[in-house]
């Protein structure tokens, strides 16, 4: 039964991983706006568009 100790440790580590992922997502502003990304993902770039400049570098507020 001592394998339980390892299993519990693993499950807690895994859970902590998810918690830190959650904290990171809040910190990077993903919870600030829950509407715009749903629209943004549907945009297509025009076929003849030049190299898109760096729109992903976000102004962090």
């Amino acid at each position, binding site marked *: *039964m001592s394998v339980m100790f390892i299993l519990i440790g693993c499950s807690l580590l895994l859970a902590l991983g998810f918690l830190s992922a959650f904290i990171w997502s809040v910190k990077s502003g993903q919870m600030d706006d829950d*509407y*715009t990304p749903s629209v943004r993902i549907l*945009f297509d770039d025009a076929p003849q568009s030049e190299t898109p400049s760096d729109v992903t570098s*976000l*102004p962090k507020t």
Partner: protein
Amino acid sequence: MGNQQLINFTTCFHCGESCAIEILPYDHHSFCCKGCLTVYQLLSDNNLCSYYNLENAPGTQQLHPVLSSSYSYLDDEKIIQQLLTYKDENIARVIFFIPTMHCSSCIWLLEHIYKLDGGVTGARVQFMKKELHISYNPRQTSLRKIVTLLSRLGYEPAISLNDLEKRVQKDDNRKLIYQIGVAGFCFGNIMLISFPEYFGLDSFTKGSFSKLFGYINLILSLPVFFFSARDYFIAAWKGIRSKFISIDIPLALGILVMFVRSTYEVVSGHGIGWFDTHAGLVFFLLIGKWFQQKTFDTLSFERDYKSYFPIAVTVLRDNSETTLPVTSLSIGDRILIRNNELIPADAILLKGDAHIDFSFVTGESDPMHKVLGEIIYAGGRQIGHTIELEVCKKVSQSYLTQLWNNEAFSKDQRSSIESFQQLVSRYFTLALLIIAFASAGWWLVMAPSLALNAFTAVLIIACPCALALSSPFALGTAMRILGKHQFYIKSPQVIEQLAHMDTIVFDKTGTLTQPSAASIHFHGKELSLVEKKLIASLVSQSIHPLSQKIKSFLVQSNLLSVSTLKETTGKGLSGTVDNHSISIGSAAFLNIPQAADDNLSTKVYIDIDNNLLGYFQVDHTYRKGLKEVTDLLRPTYEQYLLSGDNEKEKEKLIPYFKEENRLFFKQSPADKLFFIQQLQSTNKHVIMIGDGLNDAGALRAANVGISITESTSHFSPASDVIMSASMFDKLPTYLAFSKNTLKVIHASFIISLMYNIVGLSFAVQGTLSPLFAAILMPLSSVTVIVFTTISTTLLSRKGGLQ
């Protein structure tokens, strides 16, 4: 000439408005004005036509071209510094609030703004807040260029004095999300680890795990206790210090006792404790808090004159024009005010023909003519040519802004009516403490070993979780439903306040009347098409509001040129068009004897080649459903009317308000404020409904201030509720719904009290097990959440709000 009817059916490719005035074909599309066409050309030149593919006619009409001088104040280094959120040599960041943003095309275009201005390095939209976050290279472009570009595209950023004075970022919301996340994480894991205990599985392993599980639970509870629940302790402590018993006190007490007792049990090896209930309780409470915190991000309920006033003004110094921030304007400065600009401070007219529209300040709807040397109060909007003024008072000292020095604005608006939750929690806390001590006392006599056990069990089980959840969920749901119907409420507590009101005070101009839609009729011989065209050509030369109304009434395109034109201020205008001499104006202007009862409406007479053709009658129209609204509200509410206007509409308004002494005219902003305070001093609970800056004082002083607005992206004065003008006829429904919501809260309190009584009956006997608590607590919370949410939604359906 016969194709005019057809033209009306053509809509603009850019903005979707009908091309009533002119029609400009380009690229197989039609445009309603030069402005829209320019935007289209700019976009198609830059390969940005996807803008038109995402939504149909996504633009906003561009009737007024952007003047290149409009944003010259954005070159001022000091103003730039205050607007930017970050700046170094290579990058500057700024956040604009863009009220006209309304669809996915807007998002697309605004995020591709870098294609139109190479200096922009990144643009991100936050649609719900209508914010555009821009980062740009200050060496390649400037703030002024970006703002001018946005305005040309029809996305004029709203930049106001408020932005300069304070920039507070709300981080509260993020903190709450962290707290919920942490509490949820701990709650789930503690439950998981407590499972063996629930099912008695640990007896198979002879208890070897129970100690380990206990300690893991203890560790997992630490962040819940010290991080997630800390706000409850702070609130409770504040309450105790100000001798104010709120629901936070029994909550904090319950959380504290649960944690301490569980820690003791685990460390002393007596049991596994109540950590699961503890984490779950905090988790549910925070969810309730979050649900209630829903705010309408795009609306500001705190705006004062500062967000209405311009940010900068043109000042004449040494015969040259410079722009100065309004705040640094000093007495004696000479300022230039152009057409449609606001006068920022009380000033004396030096030069020019001043027609000042004070509708937003005084409620008087017709523009006032001012003569040289007269003092013009701040807040008026010049209509017509550029005027020159000398500032005679500082911005903060002017007639209008002094209203904000009234104590109604300085006092913290602690609601005058105690909320039901506050009322109940006071008695609840008292009863809880009595029961806890009584059972402790009883057991001290009967079996001292059980005394502490019973005492803590009472505090734990009576922790009013369900009680604390019922208000947030009922009010939060109601707030969402009302928000869907364009009745935006500042905070959930306002709904409860609304339910207690017994008096309604209306403002007239802009609130009961519809500013844009004055009804206009022509009386006299029917006008021929030629005559219509002649009149339209002449009135299109004048910027007087009446001329504009007649012009839009006539709907003519291809206007003729006017050879001579003479405008007599306040009377009328005459001129020659196509060899016909035309005079348009008041009866006095055309020497027509006027009937005595004529002051109910405005009449504009028409004379072509000395033939009197008839007159246009312009009436103020009252909002749709005003009759029904006042009739429906009469049984429950005392209704009053305050108007800044003169008494000419009194006769018309009496049928709506029944009693003449309920109508008050020529009320200054301070009079309105005083009137509300007087009503309150006779123990009335007052709702004030208004729209302009002149109502700001009254809106603030009233128990609930409702500001009504044609478009929620426009300015509205500080208030508790912002209501869309188109929903005015629904007002009685909203008020009735707020009363029903209160009933839901009452019912859910009874439910949660019943759970508490069941729990307490076990607790006082000292037989409360952790497992029982772990089931009862979430069960009661979920029951209350489901009950309040469903019944509030059902009641809204019944009341006609879908």
